[in-house]
């Protein structure tokens, strides 16, 4: 009886193996997958508390903001604006696919409606949607290793059929030394480059390395003069983060 079960198991296994081995490029898929997984882990960690400065440049203005961000994995994050004084205390909460903001001046919590999700976030070249969704690369894309040099991997990310992402494809260059991205290029469906994100200035934080300068360059002609720079001044990874940050009440409570 037992023997029979074992036999069935073996047979099933064999079948699975057969299927897997006829899939082409399985070796590449695996390693590209692994690269991205490592990259994601290195960028997000289990939890992260980050202090950052965001500089938004347009044709005519330059604006600097400082903020603090708390996050658990991909799904929950809380952001609080520290500078400029006028905006101090504005908080954002993102849980799964929804986003709220609290504005102390009007003492109100507002849920960002679907129609606003693709609007620019605080005038930057990131959209609200970027903040909400950027994190799920390992789930939303199929990965393919395009090229391997001494320093870098170039990985092509194609959105899966079910992924609600606007991009046609993403090409990510990953540093071999740190398993961190160096540049990420976003294309539309016609392979036209729309924007490019560059990660530089890798520094150690605790037991991990982290890029401290992120530069987002829109490539569409009408936004050619714009750029957004994020500089990380401090980061703590995998420390205990209080769950209470990720409730709607926190928006007001931690605003001060």
């Amino acid at each position, binding site marked *: 009886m037992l023997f029979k079960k074992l036999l069935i198991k073996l047979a099933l296994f064999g079948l699975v193996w057969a299927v897997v081995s006829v899939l082409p490029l399985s070796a590449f898929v695996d390693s590209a997958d692994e690269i991205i997984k490592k990259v994601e882990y290195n960028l997000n960690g289990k939890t992260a508390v980050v202090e950052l400065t965001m500089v938004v440049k347009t044709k005519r203005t330059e604006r600097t903001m400082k903020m603090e961000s708390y996050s658990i994995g991909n799904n929950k994050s809380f952001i609080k604006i520290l500078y400029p004084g006028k905006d101090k205390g504005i908080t954002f909460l993102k849980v799964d696919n929804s986003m709220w903001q609290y504005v102390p001046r009007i003492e109100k919590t507002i849920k960002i409606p679907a129609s606003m*999700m*693709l609007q620019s976030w605080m005038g930057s070249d990131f959209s609200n949607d970027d903040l909400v969704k950027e994190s799920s690369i390992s789930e939303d894309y199929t990965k393919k290793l395009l090229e391997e040099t001494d320093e870098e991997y170039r990985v092509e990310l194609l959105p899966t059929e079910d992924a609600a992402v606007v991009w046609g494809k993403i090409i990510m260059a990953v540093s071999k030394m740190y398993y961190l991205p160096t540049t990420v290029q976003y294309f539309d469906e016609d392979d036209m480059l729309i924007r490019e994100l560059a990660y530089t200035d890798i520094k150690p934080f605790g037991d991990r390395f982290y890029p401290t300068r992120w530069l987002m360059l829109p490539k569409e002609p009408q936004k050619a003069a714009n750029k957004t720079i994020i500089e990380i001044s401090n980061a703590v990874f995998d420390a205990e983060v209080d769950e209470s940050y990720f409730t709607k009440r926190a928006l007001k409570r931690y605003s001060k």
Partner: protein
Amino acid sequence: MFRLTGKIAWVSLARRRTRSVLVVLMIAVSLWGLLFMEGIYDGMVEQMINNAIRSDSGHISLFGGGYRLDPDLSRQVVDVAAVDDFLAQDSRVLSYVKRLKQDGLVATAHYSRGAAIFGVDLEVEERHGRLAGYLYQGEFSFGRRARGAIIGFKLADKLQVRIGSKIILSAQDRHSDVSAAPLKVTGILKTNNMAFDENAVFIADKKARQLLAMDEGVSQVAVILHDEAQIPGLQQELRRRFPHLEILRWDELYPALMQSRVMMEGFNLVTSLLIFCVAALGVFGVMLVSVLERLREFGIMLAIGTRFSQIRNIIFAESFFLGFIGFGLGALIGWGTLYYFMIYGLDLSMFGDAFDEFGMDAVTYAIIRPSYFVTALVAVTMATFLSVLVPLWVLKKAKPIEAINKN
């Protein structure tokens, strides 16, 4: 007797051939113009109404209570089964469709736009409103795995997408969370229902339910009837049966279209009156002159014992001959012209793209209504009758017998 009167009338018309031909032509041409105008304008208005009915409102639409003021997923038609039961069995109902609707956002890598998302069953929509007839590009299908979307052509233009392009649809679901789904454009519609062409994104009902987390309920049930005359009756009955639903006729949903129809009727009436007044004036002139010319002739006839009523009949007959031949000719040419435009349509696209802008089809298919001909016949009869009254009065006053001695 009648035959003789007719014969005399005919002969005297034939004697003044050019004149008679001109009058007949005039009546024919005015009738032709009138028919053309009525048929084309009515066709245009009915086409606009038809577009709205087929693509959206049906003859009657059922919505959840309060939905029209605040179109929220919480205000749906929930007792779908009861509505289904009633509509499926009612003999007045030709067909009906159920749609799930929610406002949301369509986006590509470059653009994003507000959109009205419709979860539909294409097969039912096709049977109901022949929706496939509005297909402008692509195919009338959501593809094998229902990942397709059929969108309005103006929306496609604004997003700069084509068949095969990917779009991301996002909307607030029933729990007011933002939910999103990727879709491929499989078809582009041109309904010439402005609101639709600018906003509509049709997706598979199943897909919409998934996106909006709606297991049951529909936003709108659109009903098309066999006979327009039964609309108010059915509306009353539906209201009685489903008091908590909002049940509206197409003309309540598209009041501007109903007004167009009423305005067009008024416009047609005024124009036909005008044309027939002018035509009557023409007949009047000819008859007056022909009576005056023949004073002597009539005098002799009276002198040899013809009764005045006979002469009156001759004059009436002449006038009616002119009128009816003109009517026959005009009706025939008018019918032919309208028939041609009913089959092939009148292409007004040479006047530019203004039509698209205002929800009109550039190609208008004429309508032929029996009432056009009946009204015209009545009008021609009236015109020919009225236009000889004065000549007859003149004739009576002129004492034709005395006229014999003139000249």
